Every structure is written in structure tokens, then in C-alpha cells.
């Protein structure tokens, strides 16, 4: 009998039925009765399962129909960051195993070489490892906060002494106080860096993206580091440029990137040297370079340079006053900004670090979905994370939606006013406001009064708890990562069905030949009088009316405003008569055809044409 005290619920994510059966048999044969082995065969099902059920551990085969390799490991990790993860790999695939461990998996098992004892050993090991990782994170966060309190008193007191707030100091005293002061500040930087990196790794740092001009930010960083550079006898210069370079970034975080690169370059430059910063604008990316005249980066250190606590040699940290976290933070931030960081030897000695970030114009250009199928229903996605937005657009394209992006509340309102969207997806966290306020304002726009709106957010509870939310008629609140099937079901209901169902035509005429012809393109209700027409409109909705003004008693221009659907909106009308010309000017009359000059076929073609141009939208509009 196996004892599985810790592990009660395992989620197996595996698409190979043979492997699933094998594992299920192993577990039941060995009497691991207290352990429940649930099974799903794709990542979207796993995400759904993890969102709802309590799972102690995940067993993942990374080769799935809807996610592969590292991507599936990342998605599983994102769906349940607190749940330990064991990856199933194939024989001789040590690279995948190694990458899996780096991406947050706690252990791996090799298929074909496992028995139930081995699995349980790996599961226990992974669970314990995860527990220790969590303890470490909590410990680091607590300690960092606790350290700040005494550090505030220490740096504060030393700062006052150095500023002569307690009287002038003699030279020997001043030298000693200066040492204490500098080192207390170094300790503050270290604590800040540790907190930053822990928060970033835990995904707790919210990025506020906006349009950022890079050069003023560089100038600000240079100014802030002037004293530091002078301490090393190093000059920092920003190269002139003609064009402004705008990127899409979080300005505070980008400033941190520039500051860290500058402070490294300054520390490793020999005295009387220059650090040169340049900002160049390319077609898609802005390239920021920081060139130093330092000793260069040793070859064996290069692969480790962006790792945490990495220092080229152990003495460096003490000598240079670094934390070994600066470049690791740079890498984490640049990744989140959708950019790239790297380095190369400078031609005449020293090192050039570069950061490439997406140009604002480029990102703004991506906002409109230009590759969608013509006629695809168009959605507006209000989301400030470009990677998330691009992924969702790609998925939505597979099911024939076009997706435009709005990166902020302001953006969203402008776009919504310019284009009629069929549905709107809103993230609660936006750089210039919250999603709920955005929805309030959208609902105030008459054309979006009834439009389907879905909230898609990392933390939907934040918006749901908002007292305004109950009145906003939000179709659903979806947590990230998005359960895509559910999203598509939601969007399909009001939009696609509306577009695909047979149109309903109200035919106000006595001509049966016309009614028969129209029934080829929709469901036709034929009535012979205006009274009947109005009754029919009360009873059900129609997409269009065909009206013969000559044959029907009482039909005239004054009738058109009466033709409304149940929500009171005017419906389009094709006027068909001996002489329809006098109605042609009316906005509601989509076409006025003179009977004597028009065949039934061309009438049907006209109606078909008008129906095709009606908006595929739940809210009816005057066209």
C-alpha cells in the first residue's frame, strides 16, 4: 500500500492515449487509491481544469495539440504558478528536460523508464522543492521589507552627518562617515534589487505601457548618475541625433534599464574615460547602445552574464560595489517590454551593450488587424500587453474574427468611435485608467449600448467587485490565461449566429412570385396591408422590409418611420413600386426600384445586397 499523504490530486496533461492508460494502470495496480489521477488531453482543457479544481501536482507531456515544448510548460506554470510541475520527456531528450527545469518545472520523468515508485518519488521531490521555493520567495520579500526600516534610520542619520546637519565634521571623521554612508546606500540598492527581481519573477510587477521618448529618458538617467560617474572620474555623453525615437514601454522600468546599464558602464570604465550612449531609430525597433572602455567581458563569463548574482569574478562585487543583479533585472524588464538585450566587444576595446525596443509607430501600426479575412466580424481588444494581444489575435483569426488593439482607455474610446465593433474585450488593468471606467464610458455611447463586452484580465475580481459593474451588462469575466473555447462560445452566440442565421424579410405586397423568389434568401412573411405589417413587426423582428407602395393601400412615405423592430429601431426598407422614385431620398429606404423596369431577379439581388451590408451586431442600427 502506498502512502501518499501529500499528493491527493494529480493532473495528467497528455494527449497520447497509450501513455495515459499506462499511467492509470500503474496507479491502480499499485493501490495508490488515495491519489486521484485526473486527465486532460490539451492545454486549454488543462487551463480550465486548473482554474476550477484543486490540484497538488501537474504531470505534463509538453508535446500537445495546442501547445508545444517550452510554450506548454510556461502556460501550465502561468495557469497554476503555485502548483509543482513534473515534465514527461522522451528518452534521450535531455535538452528539453534541462530547459523545463529552467522554466519552472521541479522535476522530469523519462517515458518508458518509469514505474509508479519512481513517479511518486519524483512527485514528492517536486512538491517539496516547490514548497521550499515558495518559502524562499516569502522569506526574501519579508527580509527585504524588514531591512528597509533599520536602513532608513542608518542612511538617514549618516546622510544628515554628511550634510553637516549636526555641525561640521573633521576630515578623519568625515572620511569614516563617508564610508559608512556609501555602504549603507549600497545596501539599500541591494535590497531594492532583490525585491525587484523577486517581484518580477513572481509576475507581481504591473507594467504601465505608454509612448515614451527615449532620449529625454536617457538624459534624465545621465543626470541622475552624474555624481556617481564623477566618483569614478568618468564622463557620460549622449550622442546627438536628428530624429526623435519613440518606443512603447513603461517609462519607470525603462529608466531602470538605462540606469543599470549606465552604472555598469561607469563602474567598469577606467578613470578619465568616456561612456557613450546612442539612440538610433530603425523601421521597427529603436536601438539604445551604451559603450564603455572597460576591460571587456571574460569569455567564460559571457553565458552567465544575465544570471542572478553573476559577477565576473568574486572580488568584483566588493571592488565595484555591485549587487550582481543589475543585468538580470535589465534582462527581465526588456523581456517584458517585448525587446531584446545583448552585448558585443567594442572595436577599440571595451564593451557595447544594446537594448532594442519596439518603435511606437510599429506597435501603433499593429493595432489595426489588416490580415483578417474580408468581412470577418471585427473585435476591439483593449489590452496593454502586446504579446498577449498578438497571441489572442492569432487565435481569434483561426475562428474568423478580425481583432484591433487599443493599448489604453484613451485609445479604446477613439477607436470605438471611429469603427463600429461587433464585440469588445477589455482588460481591467490599463495604463491610463481601469477597464470598468472604460466600459462605463463605452456604454454611454449609443452605438455600444448593447454591444457584447467581455472582461479578460489577470485579476477579474478587481473589476467584478467594483460597485458599478453590475449595471454594465458585461457578458462574462474571464481570467487570464484565457479559456479560449469559452471566449469563442461567448463571442459566437451574439455575433456569428446573427450573421449566419437566415434573414427575416417582411414582404408587404400581394405578388406571390416576389414572395417565392425572396424565400430563396430568407424567411419571408407576406402581409397584404399596412395594419398587418405593423402587427407582424410587433410580433417579431425583421432584418428588412420589401414594400410595394403602389399595391398596398395607405403605403406612402409616412409609413416608413412606422417600420421599426421590437426595440424601436428603424429597419431598412427596399421600396418596390410602379413609381418608387419619390421615396428614394429617404434614408431608411435602401433602394427604390421601379416595377416596370425591374425584374424579380434584380429585386432579389438588391435585397440580398442590402442584407449582406447589415451589421452583424446584436444592437440594431439604422443603416
Amino acid at each position, binding site marked *: 500500500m502506498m502512502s501518499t499523504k501529500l499528493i491527493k490530486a494529480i493532473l495528467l496533461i497528455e494527449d497520447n492515449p497509450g501513455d495515459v492508460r499506462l499511467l492509470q494502470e500503474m496507479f491502480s495496480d499499485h493501490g495508490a487509491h488515495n491519489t486521484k489521477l485526473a486527465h486532460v488531453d490539451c492545454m486549454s482543457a488543462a487551463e480550465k481544469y486548473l482554474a476550477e479544481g484543486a490540484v497538488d501536482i501537474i504531470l505534463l507531456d509538453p508535446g500537445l495539440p495546442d501547445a508545444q515544448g517550452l510554450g506548454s510548460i510556461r502556460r501550465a506554470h502561468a495557469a497554476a504558478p503555485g502548483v509543482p510541475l513534473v515534465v514527461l520527456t522522451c528518452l534521450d531528450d535531455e535538452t528539453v528536460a534541462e530547459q523545463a527545469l529552467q522554466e519552472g518545472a521541479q522535476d522530469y520523468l523519462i517515458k518508458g523508464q518509469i514505474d509508479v515508485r519512481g513517479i511518486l518519488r519524483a512527485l514528492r521531490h517536486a512538491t517539496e522543492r516547490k514548497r521550499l521555493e515558495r518559502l524562499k520567495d516569502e522569506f526574501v520579500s519579508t527580509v527585504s521589507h524588514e531591512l528597509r526600516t*533599520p536602513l532608513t534610520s542608518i542612511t*538617514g*542619520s549618516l546622510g544628515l552627518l554628511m550634510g553637516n546637519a549636526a555641525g561640521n565634521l573633521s576630515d578623519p571623521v568625515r572620511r569614516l562617515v563617508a564610508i559608512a554612508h556609501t555602504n549603507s546606500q549600497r545596501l539599500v540598492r541591494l535590497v531594492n534589487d532583490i525585491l525587484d527581481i523577486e517581484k518580477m519573477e513572481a509576475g507581481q510587477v504591473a507594467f504601465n505601457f505608454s509612448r515614451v521618448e527615449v532620449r529625454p529618458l536617457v538624459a534624465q538617467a545621465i543626470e541622475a548618475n552624474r555624481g556617481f560617474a564623477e566618483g569614478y572620474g568618468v564622463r557620460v555623453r549622449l550622442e546627438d541625433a536628428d530624429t526623435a525615437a519613440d518606443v512603447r514601454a513603461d517609462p519607470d522600468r525603462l529608466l531602470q534599464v538605462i540606469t543599470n546599464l549606465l552604472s555598469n558602464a561607469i563602474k567598469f570604465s577606467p578613470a578619465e574615460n568616456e561612456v557613450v550612449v546612442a539612440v538610433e531609430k530603425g523601421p521597427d525597433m529603436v536601438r539604445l547602445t551604451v559603450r564603455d572602455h572597460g576591460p571587456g567581458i571574460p569569455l567564460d563569463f559571457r553565458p552567465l552574464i544575465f544570471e542572478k548574482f553573476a559577477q565576473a569574478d568574486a572580488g568584483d562585487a566588493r571592488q565595484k560595489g555591485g549587487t550582481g543583479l543589475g543585468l538580470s533585472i535589465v534582462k527581465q524588464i526588456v523581456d517584458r517590454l517585448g525587446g531584446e538585450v545583448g552585448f558585443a566587444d567594442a572595436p577599440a576595446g571595451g564593451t557595447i551593450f544594446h537594448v532594442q525596443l519596439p518603435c511606437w509607430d510599429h506597435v501603433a501600426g499593429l493595432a489595426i488587424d489588416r490580415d483578417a479575412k474580408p468581412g470577418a466580424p471585427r473585435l476591439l481588444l483593449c489590452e496593454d500587453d502586446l504579446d498577449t494581444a498578438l497571441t489572442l489575435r492569432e487565435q481569434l483569426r483561426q475562428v474568423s474574427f478580425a481583432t484591433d488593439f487599443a493599448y489604453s482607455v484613451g485609445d479604446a474610446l477613439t477607436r470605438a468611435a471611429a469603427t463600429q465593433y461587433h464585440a469588445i474585450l477589455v482588460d481591467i488593468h490599463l495604463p491610463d485608467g481601469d477597464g470598468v471606467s472604460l466600459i462605463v464610458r463605452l456604454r454611454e455611447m449609443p452605438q455600444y449600448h448593447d454591444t457584447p463586452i467581455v472582461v479578460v484580465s489577470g485579476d477579474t475580481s478587481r473589476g467584478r467587485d467594483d460597485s458599478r459593474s453590475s449595471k454594465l451588462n458585461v457578458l462574462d469575466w474571464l481570467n487570464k490565461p484565457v479559456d479560449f473555447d469559452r471566449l469563442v462560445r461567448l463571442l459566437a452566440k451574439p455575433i456569428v449566429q446573427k450573421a449566419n442565421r437566415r434573414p427575416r424579410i417582411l414582404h408587404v405586397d400581394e405578388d406571390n412570385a416576389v414572395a417565392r423568389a425572396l424565400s430563396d434568401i430568407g424567411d419571408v412573411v407576406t402581409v397584404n396591408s399596412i395594419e398587418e405589417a405593423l402587427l407582424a413587426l410587433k410580433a417579431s423582428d425583421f432584418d428588412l422590409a420589401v414594400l410595394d407602395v403602389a399595391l398596398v393601400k395607405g403605403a406612402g412615405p409616412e409609413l416608413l418611420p412606422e417600420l421599426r423592430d421590437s426595440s424601436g429601431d428603424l429597419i431598412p426598407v427596399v421600396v418596390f413600386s410602379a413609381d418608387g422614385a419619390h421615396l428614394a431620398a429617404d434614408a431608411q429606404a435602401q433602394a427604390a426600384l421601379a416595377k416596370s423596369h425591374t425584374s424579380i431577379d434584380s429585386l432579389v439581388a438588391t435585397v440580398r445586397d442590402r442584407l449582406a451590408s447589415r451589421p452583424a451586431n446584436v444592437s440594431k442600427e439604422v443603416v
Partner: protein
Amino acid sequence: MTDIRILLVDDEPDIREVVDVSLGLDREFATRACASGADALVTAAEWSPSLILLDVMMPLMDGPTTLANLRKNPRTAHIPVVFLTARTQASEVEQYISLGAQGVLSKPFDPMTLAASVRSYLPPVAASHAP
């Protein structure tokens, strides 16, 4: 000439002293310090400070609760409050501002410029006493 009264609320005695000296660098500032939110409510009502510098993490009554209580009392409701805190993640700053704080200063702070930072949060009338 009237002094600009600053009420400091922090449970750490050392920090109270350092802040007191730092604010003292501005000769127009008169500083009083309280060790708890409860003390602060009483002192604020009696002394009518121009601005309150408030710690966030304090036992019994934390900074945000103290702020809420200050706002409830008509005698203290109008006094600008600036948080002085070790917790200054962007989301936290946003939250403090939404609670009605005028600003957030982070710990550790630069003692030589603290008084100037505090002055920038003073309402125009009080700040006009600037030398």
C-alpha cells in the same frame, strides 16, 4: 510669522528622530511626532498641523486606517496627508493616492532633501511662508 506645522506619525523611534532632524533643516517647519495612529488622531485635532507625514505599516492602526479616521473628523478632514513608506510599488502608490493621500515619499529617504519634498505637498497658503 507662523510656523508650518508638520505632524509625523511613525512607530519607529529612530526614524522619528531622523525625520525630525531632517525637517528641522527647514527653519519654518515645526515638527511634532506621534508613535501611533491613535495618538495622531488626537494630536491632529488639537494642534491642526499643515500636513501629516504618515507611516503605512504600524501596529494596531495602520496608515491607511489612520487616514480614513482623519477624514471622518471634520477638524482633521482637510489636512493634507503624505505617506512615508517602505512599500512604494507603483500599484501601492496608486492605492494610497486613491485613499486620498496627497503624495507618497519612499523610505529610505534622502534626509537633506526631505523638507523640500514635504514642502512641495503643502497647500498654497502654507507654502507661501517660504523664505
